[in-house]
Structure formats: structure tokens, C-alpha cells
């Protein structure tokens, strides 16, 4: 299987006054095409930082990250923006939809930045919202949607430019267990269709859905195991 993301001996060090905080302290990891990877760890373990680095939202202090074989440390802002736009799709715990836009417009937004023409954009956004089961909520604004529905819009948005990997940070953290389960079903379904997914969580319930589980603590990887559920 092809490598989607390769993380090589990455360190992320924050300076807080005189103190050094080692959010990541020498992490190496490979995400393979088509896998459903779970990164597990308690809060402060560095898992979210790792996700941000894999999604080019942040740069490592040391080490290198390759996305589809491209080393990202040398990229400038427009190039990084392009990777975030086309190669990865983010799903956040807080959904992070733009409140003034409708569901359809929220899903269209990444395609606007990608320069997709309006008609094509509209069509694709509609398809994706139908895919996540929101075909009847196209023109609702986030405030008119439930948490589960908002997260589905966010997933549709993350898929807008056909990313090579979907990066999700505690996607069920703000949801009741029933809608959380539904969201995870969507992820599983996407993964079955070949979508590479990385989910960061502290919740063992979520971890059950992955193919492979990487456990982290204090900025380091503790263990790696293949999930035998499937």
C-alpha cells in the first residue's frame, strides 16, 4: 500500500516563558493508503498537535513530514494552503461551521478556495450532503441543525475536494452517544469505500472502529496495535 503521510522523528516544542513544553518529542508514523488509523491518548499527550502537523496547520520544530511524498517543511504559505485545501480534510470536535452560511455554502467553501466553478461546486456539495444523509437540510444554517447534523455537514465539507486523507479531532466529543455512533458509521462507510481516515481520540469506543491504533503519552508513541475487530 502507498504511503499517504510519513511523519519522521518529529518534535514540536513550545516555549512558555522559561519552560519548554515538548508537545511532541520524536514521533515517527506512517499513514497508509486506505487505512483507518486511530491515535489515542489522554489530553496533553500531543495527539492533537500531531494531527495539526499532519494537516499542515502547523510546522514541526524538528523532523520532517511528507504528504504524498512531498516534504512540507520547505513549503510556503500558498503551497501549504493548497495542501490543506486539496490533500487533507479536517473534521473538528467543535464542528467549526461558519454560522452565517447555509449547509450547502459551508460545503462549497473549500471548493471556492480551490477555484471550482459555481455550478460544479453546487452539484458536488449537494451530492456530498446527500451522502451524509442531509439532502433535506441543504439550506439550513448551522444554528438550525443538531450537533450530529452539524458534524455531518463538517464531514461533507472535509470531503469537498476529494482529499487523500480525512483528519478528525475527537469528532464525537461534543455529541451524545447515539449521534456519535452515527458519525462513526459514516466514517466507517467512507473508509470501506477507500477513504483514508485518521481519528484522534481518548475514547476507547471510538477506537473500536479503527484498523490500527497508535497510543500516545507525553509527546511520544507508546504502542501500536492492529485492531482485530473486523
Amino acid at each position, binding site marked *: 500500500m502507498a504511503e499517504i503521510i510519513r511523519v519522521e522523528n518529529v518534535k514540536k516544542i513550545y516555549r512558555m516563558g522559561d519552560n519548554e513544553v515538548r508537545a511532541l518529542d520524536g514521533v515517527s508514523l506512517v499513514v497508509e493508503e486506505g487505512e483507518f488509523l486511530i491515535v489515542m491518548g489522554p489530553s496533553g499527550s500531543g495527539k492533537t498537535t500531531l494531527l*495539526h502537523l499532519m*494537516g499542515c*496547520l*502547523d510546522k514541526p520544530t524538528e523532523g520532517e513530514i511528507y504528504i504524498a511524498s512531498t516534504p512540507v517543511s520547505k513549503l510556503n*504559505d*500558498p503551497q*501549504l*494552503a*493548497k495542501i*490543506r*485545501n*486539496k490533500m487533507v*480534510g*479536517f473534521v*473538528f470536535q467543535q464542528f*467549526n*461551521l*461558519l454560522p*452565517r452560511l447555509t449547509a450547502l455554502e459551508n460545503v462549497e*467553501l*473549500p471548493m*471556492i*478556495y*480551490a477555484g471550482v466553478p*459555481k455550478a460544479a461546486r453546487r452539484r458536488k456539495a449537494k451530492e456530498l450532503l446527500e451522502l451524509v444523509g442531509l439532502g433535506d437540510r441543504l439550506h439550513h444554517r448551522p444554528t438550525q441543525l443538531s450537533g450530529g447534523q452539524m458534524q455531518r455537514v463538517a464531514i461533507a*465539507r*472535509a470531503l*469537498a*475536494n476529494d482529499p487523500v486523507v480525512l483528519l478528525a479531532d475527537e469528532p464525537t466529543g461534543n455529541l451524545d452517544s447515539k449521534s456519535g455512533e452515527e458519525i462513526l458509521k459514516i466514517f466507517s462507510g467512507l473508509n470501506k469505500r477507500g477513504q483514508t481516515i485518521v481519528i484522534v481520540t481518548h475514547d476507547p469506543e471510538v477506537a473500536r472502529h479503527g484498523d490500527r491504533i497508535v497510543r500516545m503519552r507525553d509527546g511520544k508513541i507508546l504502542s501500536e496495535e492492529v485492531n482485530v475487530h473486523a
Partner: protein
Amino acid sequence: MLDMLKEAFRSIAHNKLRTALSMIGIIIGVAAVIGVVSVAEGTSRSIRQSLTSIGSNLILVSPGFTRGGGGRTATALTEVLEKEDADRIAQLCPSVRYVTPIQQGNFIVQHERQNSMATVMAARPVLFDMINVKLFQGEFFNESDERAKRRVAVIGKEVADELFPNGDALGQTIRITSGSIRQTYMVIGVLEKSGNLLFLNPDRSIVVPFASAENRLFRRKNVSMIVAQAISENMANQAVSEIDSVLFDKFQNEEKYRIVSQDALLETVNQTMAVLSFMLGSIAGISLLVGGIGIMNIMLVTVTERTREIGVRKAIGASRRHILLQFLLESIVLTFVAGLLGIAAGFGLSKLIAKIGSVQTAVTPTVVLVAVSVSIMVGLFFGVWPAMRASKLDPVEALRYE
């Protein structure tokens, strides 16, 4: 780009009260600039009108005055110009088409029991070819009247109305007196009402042939002024220097006479008004600056408020340029819309001033264009900093912002 523009409009429309309040500064600024400049422009136009409505390419020669100083006061020289000077100008100055000496004085005029005050002007008949006055009735006097020293008069409408309240003045006689001086004239023409012109008020004047009046009414050798007309606008300066050399030949002293050309006056007025307009406009423009600072303030607040949105946008693929453009566009759209509203308000203000201030106002395309482009520039200038701040936000921190 179109999508971004649409979004900018939407985002501005979202918080209507705040948008309206921040626009007010720009609206007032633009309206003030347009209003103030329209007054200056209108005034300038009315001055130019009164300067040019009398005729074109006129040149006025009047006696000079002695300088004050050392205990002496400045006094006008009166015993300088003579009708022969006008004749010499006519002979020696090829760029001058017409010239006439003019005697001028205030007299009491009577007809039967009516009497009034009027300015009597003795001039040669060419005067009527030089200045734009029209006849209400009757006719002008001509060369033969001048040569025969006929006592005929063309009188202003106001004078006619006062002396002949029952109507027809033509063919009637009027008596012009001042102390022991008196002479009777026959009215052959009445001038149309025209208002004040450059050096005379035709409505309150009585124009008589120069030769008829010079020895009887005025009894002096010197004339009040000499009026000449250049052949064309291009020849005006040439005509002035020709007249100057003729007069300098005679007097050998350039302080004894003054030559003022209409074109020079116009030029001066234009320059003065341009400076005035610019100054007043700039002062009004300060309010645009203040409005711009208001815009910057509101944009900074907006950026802070929308920190999380900026983080999200970056996470899904917006580059710094996208964010910069988004916020810049918002402030430009804001000031542009405010500028348009300001133009409307400026027009209104200009009309209002014209109505209650009874001055002429004129809104020129230039001032509208300048005001709008300045307001867009203000948007650009004061929008850059907030937009830069937005674009430089660290996405990870922006996403964490509550």
C-alpha cells in the same frame, strides 16, 4: 473574486447597525467635501458669469493712483487720461478692434415731475458693439449722432421705470442736472434689464454720445476711463502690451495709468477659486480621514471577533492572500457604499445650501470622482492593517480561540 465580493456584501449586511454607524463618518465626509466644493464652484461660476456677461476680451484703462506712505494717503489720479489717448490707441494698436473714452458721473435726472439719480455715461457709439446690452425698445445712438453732437440718450430700464411710470419713454425729453450744470436729452432707446456688469450697472445708467456731453455735462478735459476690445481672445495679451506702450510713450511713468484685461481678471478668479476649492475641500476631507479611522476600528473588532472563522477558513484551504483579500474587500465595499451614499447626501446638501443660502452651487463630476476615489482609498488604507492582522493569524491558535 465575485464570490468574495458577494461574501463581503453579506458580511457587511450581517451587522446592520454597526455597519451603518461606521459608514456615517465616510458619508458625512464625502457629503461635506461635495457640499463645500459645490459652493466654491458655484461662486466661481457666478463670478465668471458676471465677468463675461458684459462682453468678451475687454480691456479697461483707468487712471493710476499715487502711493501712500510717509504721511501721505494714496489718492487716485484723475487728470491723466484724455480722449486723445483713446484716439491714439485706435490708430496705433493693431490688436485692438474698438476703443472708446468714457466719461462717467452721477446726476439728477428729471422728467416733468418725476426725478431720480442715475449714472450718466458718455461714450462713443462703438460701446454698443463692445458690450452685451440689448434694447428693450427704441434704438442705440450712432456715429452721425456722435458727430452732430445730438442730445439723444439710451436709458436703463430702472431709470425708465422711475421717470416714466406710465409707460412709453421713447421720444420724451429728460433733464440731466448737477448743480448749475443742466442739459436736456431725448430718449431714443431703453435698455433691457441686465443686472450688474463688470464696470457698469446698465439698469441705472443713461448712455449719451461722448461728443454731446463732454463739454456740457462734464466740463473737463480728462476722461474717467478708456475701454478697448481686443480682436480676439488670443490677441488680448498683445492688445494690452500695445496699449501699454502707447500710454507709456506719453506718460513715461507706468504708475499713472492702470490696464486691466478681462482675461487677466478671469485668470485670477479661476486661480483664486481653484485654491479656495482645494483648501475648503481639504478641510472637509479631514472628516473623511476621521471616518477612515472609524472604519479601521470596526475592522479590527471584526477581525478579533472572527478569529475562529479565520482559523477555520485557513484549515480548509484559505491562504493568507485569501484572508487578506476578504477583509480588505470588506472595508473597501464598506467605504465604497458609504461613498455612494455620501454623494447622494452631498447632492442634497448642495441643493439645500443653494436654496437657503441663496448662493449658486455646482457639483462637478470631478469632485464626485475625487470624493469616491478618496473614500475607496480610505477603505484600502485603513483596511490594510486589520486585514494583515487577520491574514497573519496562526491557524492553530485561531482555531482554539473562543
